[in-house]
């Protein structure tokens, strides 16, 4: 009988532990998240899509901006997954590179701007929870994640554009 009681206590204890974790996450993350996302969503609505379109199109000419500022604007203002519609501003051979670049930014952006990809927050938040557990501040990690993210998407864009162009050429040579 004692064994059964212990088993039951152990079973429910596991979920009490989970419940506490949930409460911690809920009170620690959700309130700020709600207010922050509300604010950013309101700003996006006020700026309006058309102005973003105009601004974004200006950045597509130079490859350095095309795979840095351009996808950042796309992900920030249109969020995952509508950000990829910005590909329409680019010639065909650059579209795969833009997609690669933009999709690689939907996680690095969440440290500072969770509105851009609320369904996939825990790539960052999962790791960040450990930092919080140690009593360290999240600012440095979020900032570096964002900046390194920009370097990485630039690199991905350039590499993918190169590969795409070569593949198109090879295909044309074969045809």
């Amino acid at each position, binding site marked *: 009988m004692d064994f059964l009681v212990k088993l039951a206590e152990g079973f429910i204890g596991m979920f009490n*532990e*989970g419940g506490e974790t949930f409460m911690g996450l809920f009170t620690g993350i959700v309130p700020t998240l709600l207010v922050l996302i509300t604010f950013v969503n*309101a700003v996006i609505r006020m700026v309006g899509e058309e102005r973003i379109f105009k601004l974004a199109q200006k950045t597509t000419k130079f490859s350095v901006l095309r795979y840095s500022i351009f996808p950042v604007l796309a992900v920030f203002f249109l969020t995952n997954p509508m950000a*990829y519609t910005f590909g329409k501003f680019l010639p065909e051979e650059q579209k795969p590179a833009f997609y690669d670049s933009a999709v690689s930014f939907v996680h690095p952006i969440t440290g500072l701007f969770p509105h851009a990809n*609320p369904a996939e927050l825990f790539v960052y938040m999962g790791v960040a929870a*450990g930092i919080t557990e140690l009593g360290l501040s999240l600012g440095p990690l979020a900032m*570096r994640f964002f*900046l390194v993210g920009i370097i990485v998407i630039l690199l991905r864009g350039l590499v*993918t554009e190169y590969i795409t162009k070569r593949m198109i050429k090879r295909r044309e040579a074969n045809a």
Partner: protein
Amino acid sequence: MSEYKAVKVSKGPNGWGGPLVIHPTDKKKYVVSVTGGGIHPVAEKIAEMTGATAIDGFTSKVENDEMVCAVIDCGGTARCGVYPKMNVLTINLTATPPSGPLMQFIKEHNFVSGVKEKNIEFAEGEAPTSTAATATEGKSAQELKTEARQKVAEMNQGKTKKKANILERIGRFMGGVVNIFYQAGRETVEQVIKNILPFMAFVSCLIGIITYTGIGDLIANVISPLAGNIVGLLIVSIICAIPILSPVLGPGAVISQVVGVLVGVEIGRGNIPPSLALPALFAINPQAGCDFVPVGLTLGEAKPETIEVGVPAVLISRQFTGPIAVVIAYICSFGLYS
């Protein structure tokens, strides 16, 4: 044969519902503008294009069965459900999804929101007839009546336009800003409930089981050697970026998120140094979006040939850029939390 034309009204940016086809008849010939006094340009344009009459719903009463459509500017409380409930086609100038106490009556076939003037166009098969052609047609008594009514409406409109003083403009502007924030708040709460809370529950359950049962030690034995040093992280990133594996690991970033939580738990327990959090974030995620390449490219209006080339291009690129990203992040993590 009526003198009325049909127009198609589509939703604007951030809008919802529609497109609606507005086709006035002799009985339903009033476009009612319920927009805080005056006739809104959208209502005016619909009236002009269809040949119906625009009426200010605040100053004159129109029977429901005489309205061909109602133009409103409701932020999602009462008005936007009232007209759909009364079976009147509703055009909302504010970009609102169905909401409010009457939201169950708001359907795509009777409601369209976020409408701007440019969202109104002639329905298919309806060419805009030139005014000259209409003028040469003989006018029936009915037409004369309508014309007279239109003239009266125009006169009223002139009056109301003058009335739009600075106070009213400020009021409208403030209303607009408040409305935007209200919408943004509604959207956010929905996102948090639909997307964030479920995952939070799942993660909490996972963490609860790990920390309570001691499976944590077992996982630590697997994860720490891999995620606890740069060589391990590189290996993880190379494996996750293999072109056959990456599309399988991608969907919803679920795997990245679970691994992220596991790494986080181990960082919290001190098994992984906190400075490695940055390279770890890239190591567990070189497959981001690899499952989504064709869809993403379609959203970017790419041609089928581009998609055919683009999918392998992205996957091959990841095999190189995945590990390189980890190295960059590792270099950039110097000085973090030390």
